[in-house]
């Protein structure tokens, strides 16, 4: 039953859009205004609308809705789907808090959840601190040729995929890796330091993977700041930290929000770094979701966990944006 509902809801959304456009066209009555089909021609108009409709409905909205409705079903073999045992239930969500097999609190998964969120926050802050000076230098201080060269240097490692970047860090940090070999060679330590087991590798891996996601929005935001403003502040005797606090950072706020949001979301949803750089006892939330799909074959529970993650991330991001008084529209540019 609920599955049909998923197919009906988008129709309601389309109807809503249509009513909205009708109402707007009445409000802003303008005799020279042409309708969508008058402006693009009938054939192209239909092509545009069907392309966008296919994307929005079949690739974005309906899969999301479908995932959500799946998470409200019990786990069943394919034969029993749609049968009498296929009812709506919140047991998958309950299982996040209370483990169904034992009835105890599900501290394992809850701890993994908070660990993922807090680590992502930490990584976001670290990346901001690392990238802000470079973005500022590129946007305000560097000459055109230098900035171009730096850009080129930034873009090339960006296209090496996540797996290989994680792999390269493992070569450095493993117990037989370069850092441990060097330290032991010099004689500073006798036994290798376990970077991967203590999650140091995970933190470095996440920060490394999303470094460039932070640089570009910051650079774009600071670049449009008028140099005269900084000059003026300096002439009036402001120390450098005050210039950043009162002039540059307030101006670049949308870019900062955008970079931080992207890094946080990517980090919270990352799969490669925790799989390849996390310690053996480290549980990352997306890895749990991954296991529900590929090892336990419990899709409804995996879907429920994925939805919990998505909701938590959205709430978190919206709260932060509200706190810094930036609208979501400004963020995604």
């Amino acid at each position, binding site marked *: 039953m609920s599955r049909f509902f998923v197919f009906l809801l988008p129709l309601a959304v389309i109807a809503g859009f249509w009513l909205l456009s009708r109402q707007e066209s009445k409000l802003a009555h303008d005799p020279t205004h042409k309708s969508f089909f008058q402006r693009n*021609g009938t054939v192209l108009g239909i092509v545009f609308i069907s392309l*966008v409709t296919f994307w929005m409905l079949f690739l*974005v909205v*309906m899969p*999301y809705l479908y995932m959500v409705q799946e998470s409200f079903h019990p786990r069943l073999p394919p034969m029993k789907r749609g049968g009498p045992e296929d009812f709506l239930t919140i047991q998958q969500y309950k299982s996040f808090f209370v483990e169904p097999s034992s009835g105890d609190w599900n501290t394992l998964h809850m701890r993994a959840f908070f660990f993922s969120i807090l680590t992502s926050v930490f990584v976001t802050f670290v990346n901001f601190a690392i990238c802000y000076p470079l973005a500022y*230098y590129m946007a305000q201080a560097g000459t055109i040729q230098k900035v171009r060269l730096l850009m080129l240097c930034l873009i090339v490692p960006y*296209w*090496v995929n996540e797996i290989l970047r994680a*792999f390269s860090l*493992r070569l450095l940090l493993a117990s037989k890796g370069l850092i441990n070999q060097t330290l032991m060679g010099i004689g500073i330590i006798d036994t290798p330091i376990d970077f991967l087991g203590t999650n140091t590798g995970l933190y470095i891996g996440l920060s490394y993977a999303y470094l460039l996601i932070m640089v570009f929005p910051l650079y774009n935001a600071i670049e449009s700041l008028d140099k005269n403003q900084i000059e003026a502040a300096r002439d009036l005797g402001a120390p450098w930290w005050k210039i950043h606090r009162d002039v540059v950072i307030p101006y670049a706020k949308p870019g900062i929000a955008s970079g931080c949001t992207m890094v946080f979301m990517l980090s919270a949803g990352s799969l490669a770094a925790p799989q390849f750089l996390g310690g053996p006892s480290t549980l990352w939330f997306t890895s749990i979701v991954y296991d529900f799909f590929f090892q336990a074959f419990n899709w409804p529970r995996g879907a429920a966990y994925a939805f919990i993650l998505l909701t938590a991330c959205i709430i978190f991001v919206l709260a932060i944006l509200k706190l810094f008084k930036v609208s979501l529209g400004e963020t995604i540019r």
Partner: protein
Amino acid sequence: MSSRLVMRGMIAFYIFLFFAYLFGPLLVMGITAFNTPSYPQAYPFEAFTLNWFVKLWNHRAMMDGIKNSIIIGLGVVAISVPVGLAAAIMMGQIYHRARSVFYLVTVSPVLTPGVIIGISTVIFWKDLMGVTDFTKAYFYKGIILAIFGQSSFVAAYCLLIIMARLQRFDRSQEEAALDLGASFPQVFWHILVPFLKPALISASVIAFLSSFENYNTTTFAILADKTLVTVLAGEVRQGTTPALSALAVVIIGLSLIGAILYEVAKRREEAAAQRMQERARLAERGEVIGAKTGLA
């Protein structure tokens, strides 16, 4: 004066550290690709070898993965660039209040974790394709699902790129063409598309590359098939071999060549533009001189 020098030194040192962090691991990995030991090690460097590249070339699963990755990448370009173009055009034409809602919905896939996009794609299409045996047999395939899953967010990238260029489009060009009797498709193909060409090209490149290197969405959507990145993930999980380093060297080499070619093309374009300006200025001066001497 000396404090300025200290400041400069500090900036240079910081930039050096930043790029050491960025390139260091890749450099070390690059060295291991040419070293003989079967555990990828950069130091001590025992002997130079190209053996790992041969191993890479003979790695069947990886070569199959590359083939699938290219097919998926082309599929993603074929879907997401037209969709992004259509959405960008619609974005400019719909009413204000509807626009902000439309904008939020269209860019939401950019912010959604890739894992969730992959999961929702599989769950949805499994049931939809499962309706008839025919669709289940021919369309419920990893490659098709991966194309759909990746397109959902890659189309949003394309939308953003194309929209940025469309905002600079001068509407009066379109109106002039229409007044002179051009039809709508003519205006679209002869005025709008040529104007958007640079954005369409960069959207295609970015779409292909983001599809090629995607892991989070693909690992769910690909089902039983394999792409280069999922094969790689399996390899890294099992252990480490310098063949992976060799692959990284190849990828870095290719993207370096691409970046340099792009830079050269851009420089040449700029030089041409400058020459044109110079010529225009000379011509103008010539005219002025001609007018003064009464030759014009």
